[in-house]
């Protein structure tokens, strides 16, 4: 569906993550698909509300005509079903697509988000290997947030403070609980906050490389993206550990969304079709509800999640026997 008022053609990319919901618009006529608008919003446990807020910001500007929509992130299916996305992609492919778009020579991508971290290995512009950490909190943004708060350091100042350290302390980074114990111990010994922060960065990088990079060859060009890439202390810790420069792309915080938009564009160009997007005004004003229940139709007792828009059923997830709705999208 097209918007009533014609505007500047753009592709919308949405990354619904556990911590942030990011939206970007890429120029639809420029062959380089440059980014023309971006928004980084906190998900705060309510992906649908965050998504609507982002969309209403786009609608308010009243100057964009959405040509296609791509979604990614842990809420990709939900967002995709709600909006009628043209493509729903996993985060690994989305991040790799965005990084390759900004530099075709990229061979290693380090991505650290709020609640997970990833390592993607590419050769000649193709993903050949990846690893994901979704079980260990050591090495994710949430842990840095928490420690910064505990030390009374605003997260924005974390990186610069860490960089100002002249003598980083060694912190046990295998596990967040022990890292915290060790940090408190070092504080009690009278060590300065910058040295402790720099030590924490080094410990997180060690943890990341131990968990995700064993047996992998991390060749240049190395990209560092995701929310944590804002932290200059982390960037330097990676450079020291890898002994090579690490690049933080301009839009490091919304790379997943950029990738989703690029993939939507690619998909629509391939099929040369119209977008299935529900429409900006409609999406902002629609009433979306989700419902979760335990299905009793067979003994599996699956937990089914359904999404409804304006009283109409859109999609459901969670059925193992296939008797109820559809498993993935519509």
């Amino acid at each position: 569906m097209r918007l009533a008022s014609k505007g500047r053609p753009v592709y919308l990319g949405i990354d619904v993550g556990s911590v942030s919901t990011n939206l970007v618009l890429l120029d639809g006529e420029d062959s380089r698909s440059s980014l023309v608008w971006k928004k980084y919003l906190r998900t705060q446990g309510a992906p649908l509300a965050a998504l609507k807020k982002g969309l209403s910001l786009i609608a308010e500007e009243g100057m964009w005509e959405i040509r296609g929509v791509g979604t990614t992130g842990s809420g990709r299916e939900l967002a995709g079903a709600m909006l009628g996305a043209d493509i729903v992609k996993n985060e690994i492919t989305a991040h790799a697509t965005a990084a390759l778009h900004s530099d075709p020579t990229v061979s290693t991508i380090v991505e650290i988000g709020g609640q997970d971290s990833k390592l993607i290995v590419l050769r000649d512009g193709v993903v050949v290997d990846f690893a994901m950490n979704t079980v260990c909190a050591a090495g994710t943004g949430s842990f840095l947030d928490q420690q910064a708060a505990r030390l009374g350091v605003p997260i924005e100042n974390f990186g610069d403070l860490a960089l100002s350290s002249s003598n980083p302390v060694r912190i046990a980074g295998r596990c967040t609980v022990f890292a915290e114990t060790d940090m408190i111990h070092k504080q009690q010994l009278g060590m300065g906050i910058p040295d402790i922060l720099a030590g924490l960065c080094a410990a997180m990088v060690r943890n990341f490389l131990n968990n995700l990079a064993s047996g992998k060859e991390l060749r240049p060009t190395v990209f560092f993206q995701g929310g944590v890439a804002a932290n200059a202390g982390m960037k330097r810790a990676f450079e020291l550990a890898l002994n090579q420069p690490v690049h933080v792309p301009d839009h490091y915080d919304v790379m997943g969304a950029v990738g989703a938009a690029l993939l939507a564009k690619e998909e629509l160009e391939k099929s040369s079709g119209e977008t299935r997007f529900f429409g900006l005004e409609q999406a902002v004003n629609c009433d979306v509800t989700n419902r979760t229940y335990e299905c009793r139709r067979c003994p599996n007792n699956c937990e089914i999640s359904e999404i409804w828009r304006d009283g109409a059923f859109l999609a459901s997830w969670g059925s193992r026997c296939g008797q109820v709705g559809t498993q993935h999208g519509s």
Partner: protein
Amino acid sequence: MKVTFPHLGNAYIAIEALLRGLGHEPIAPPPTTRHTLELGSLHSPGELCLPFKIVLGNMLEGLELGADSVLMIGGWGPCRLGYYGEIQRILLEALGKRVEFITLEVPRGSYATYFQRFRKLAAARSAKALLHGARLSWAKLTALEGLEELALKARPREQISGAASRYLQEQLARLREAETVHEVQQIVEEAEVGFRAIMGPERAHLLRVGLLGEIYTVVESFANLGVEERLGELGVEVVRTISLREWVENHIFRKALGLYSLRPLRRLASGYLSGFIGGHGLESVARSVALARQNLDGIVHILPLSCMPEIVARGILPRLSKDEQIPILSLVVDEHMGESGFQTRLEAFVDLLQRRVDALGKQRSACLSGN
């Protein structure tokens, strides 16, 4: 006796037929669910593997349905699983369950001890009844694996999402009710036609991915989060390398007769692994080589956390992946794994395979650690 037994994929259909032939009332536990795993985990030592916990949960749920006996496999050789039955017997006793615990062990050398155990099971049955039960059970095992393999082919080609899996469930339900070998054969013949009707026109290049790893987690869809269905939905044809029928043939019949040889597996694995290391470790390595040489697009390797034979295999697979130029995704499963991370890895792996086929032909390799 009212006999319950743990689930192993859809094998309950064959086990029920076998138990009926032996003159017992089979009590199949309810399908494995989150509740089964919670129940099993609650009463299991934490460090044991996922299969142990699910199996114990199945037993407890089967006993809740009124069973008075438990049938389990055990014995030497396979892996720690060999003594799981014994631990489970002790755990059930400690929980105050009064049950007859029958452990079927893979015969070691001779059939004599095997038959002694079986005699306890086959109380007062005519030879004719026993033979019918055995034949029907074998026919059902063959049939259910045949149906599952048809579904593997149909899923990536289906025209309506979920149609192949739904059709499979219907046919399995019919198979469960079948009372003669003839009926079983008829169901399979009809299903071949039925599955064909579900499939759309053949696509140009369908990705084909081999599935291997520890036998329980590969066969039991609850343990592997339905990996076959997930890959099928992503448009991938799954090629199985593990069959229960083959396992029974090799480990119960051939081994007892001294006809089972590891030589073919050892030959394939040469340069990586020289012999048996317990469980399916040698198989995982040998079959990865075989799949690469059959020109498959990729391999998904599944193992339970703390499974020693498969950890050895996992350590070998990265080099094998480079040598044989085939991407391999190793996925570790345990009771704490998240579904979304699992799905994301599979989707990313399928994207990787597709882009590799598109962009490079088959020049590159990758071995993925997954977790």
